[in-house]
């Protein structure tokens, strides 16, 4: 064991024990650490799947690649009224999808849109910058709680913590204006999202999401997908100013 790996393993052990967790760290991959001792997730990442079109299994259509769903257990446990709404959304998706209006896409949808995002880490927060519509999320990891609410926001309020090598993010305070995909899967403002970012190698992360919304679903459900580090040597975020391009075409009229 090289000194560097030894230090990394010790840090994991110390952190895990100190956090009062008894589970054995069985992952074979141990990520490098930031100066603050956090697992280093920094860099430019992107999902590589078809969840942006439809988070469930779907066949191809013109302009839509076929895809296997990212929902655990395939089915989304909609309440009966919500299933009807979801079908209506699907039929109206060409105009009803919030993405067509260039709104901020919400969580977790922003993660698996076909644009890169950059993770940056600081002592008391993690910052995620998204190329799509220059969306930003500050994920406070300083032990602070969500502000009291309800507060309507597009990207929610994110409070995070490290569980071993996993960044766990609790997100609430959403509005009911965003969807999960272009196929009409939706939620209410009561949405509660828990994201888990777990490094599985230097260039890969597992992204797991728990969705809870008692107004729309009968129980909580989960999504899971890998995230990939962009390998281009000079990769950097550019701009996708969705609204700016749309307004040019439609004279500012929605």
């Amino acid at each position, binding site marked *: 064991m090289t000194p560097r790996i030894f230090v990394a393993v010790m840090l994991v052990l*110390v*952190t895990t024990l100190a*956090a009062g967790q008894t589970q054995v760290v069985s992952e074979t991959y141990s990520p490098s650490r930031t100066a603050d001792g956090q697992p280093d997730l920094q860099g430019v990442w992107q999902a590589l799947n078809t969840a942006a079109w439809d988070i469930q299994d779907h066949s191809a259509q013109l302009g839509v690649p076929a895809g296997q769903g990212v929902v655990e257990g395939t089915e989304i446990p909609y309440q009966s009224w919500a299933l009807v709404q979801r079908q209506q959304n699907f039929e109206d998706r060409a105009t009803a999808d919030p993405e067509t209006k260039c709104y901020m896409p919400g969580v977790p949808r922003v993660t698996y849109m076909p644009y890169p995002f950059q993770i940056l880490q*600081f002592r008391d927060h993690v910052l995620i910058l998204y190329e799509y519509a*220059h969306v930003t999320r*500050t994920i406070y*990891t300083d032990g602070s709680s969500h502000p009291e609410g309800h507060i309507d926001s597009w990207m929610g309020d994110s409070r995070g913590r490290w569980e071993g090598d996993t960044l766990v993010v609790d997100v609430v305070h959403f509005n009911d204006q965003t969807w999960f995909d272009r196929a009409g899967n939706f939620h209410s403002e009561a949405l509660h999202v828990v994201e888990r970012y777990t490094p599985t190698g230097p260039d890969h992360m597992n992204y797991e999401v728990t969705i809870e919304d008692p107004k729309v679903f009968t129980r909580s459900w989960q999504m899971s997908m890998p995230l990939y580090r962009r390998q281009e040597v*000079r990769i950097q975020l550019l701009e996708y100013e969705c609204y*700016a391009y749309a307004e040019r075409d439609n004279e*500012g009229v929605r």
Partner: protein
Amino acid sequence: MYGWLIGSLRLRISAMTAVVALVLLATPVAAQVSASESTPVNLLRTLGGHPDMQGYWDGGPANASHSIEEGCCDPIHAKMQKRGADRLGLREPLIVDPPDGWIPYQAWAAAQRTEHLYDMETPTKLQHIDPEDRCLLLGAPRSNYRGDLQILQNPGYVVILYEWAHAYRVIPTDGGRHVGEDIHMYNGDSRGHWEQDTLVVDVTNFNDQIWLDSHGSFYSEDLRVVERWTLVDADTISYEATLEDPTVFTRPWKIAFTIGRIKQDSYEFFEEACSEGVTNEHRLAAGRMAVASGERRIHSHEEQK
């Protein structure tokens, strides 16, 4: 509750780690500071040894985003916003070079700017309306006098977050080159380096869609901005930007102002959604009606007195 406990424990561990790190690093950093005679020794420094500008800042002077030459506002506008006398005009000139405080436009560009002052008052096209009112990214330097900002520093980059429309800039300080010249962006492409204690940022790759203020002050895709960010004391940044654009201006010119720290505890930005709620339909309709009835008029701070 359990999550909070873990968070609390982790916080303490982080604090311990930080103490150890500080003890380990104190000696070399102190040596570095005293070695440079021109350096104020009382500045906080990052682990990389650079002045620590991290935190929330209040952005540039009031009214500058309305006009970097004249400030704000006409009497009616001021009355609507309950502005006192101290919030009219500019407290001190923003343009420090040329000394007269006016943008050195080429003749064609001065005429174009006058057109903007007419068009913004009676808009018939979307492009006649100030990009700020359309929620577009405002680029450099305008973002720096539009509202609050947050600076973050890590080895290899500086990040600036703006509360305005959740804009951000990532400024690599690793010596890399700009993106290719055919890429144009609202915020441009920023590359930074440290000249002693000053963060110098070179910004290129702009598009020609953004104004420097609400008075139609404009530039072309050839704009190059060099910003100089200097922490003069713990709570003050001296900011300078030189603008060069051989297509629009007769010579390079310079703005300068100071930025003060926001000292409020537990300060956090709100999500400032902008494009999600904006519409300029009515302004366009009004502008088109005015022009159709022969009432095209110029924006002025004088005419309504």
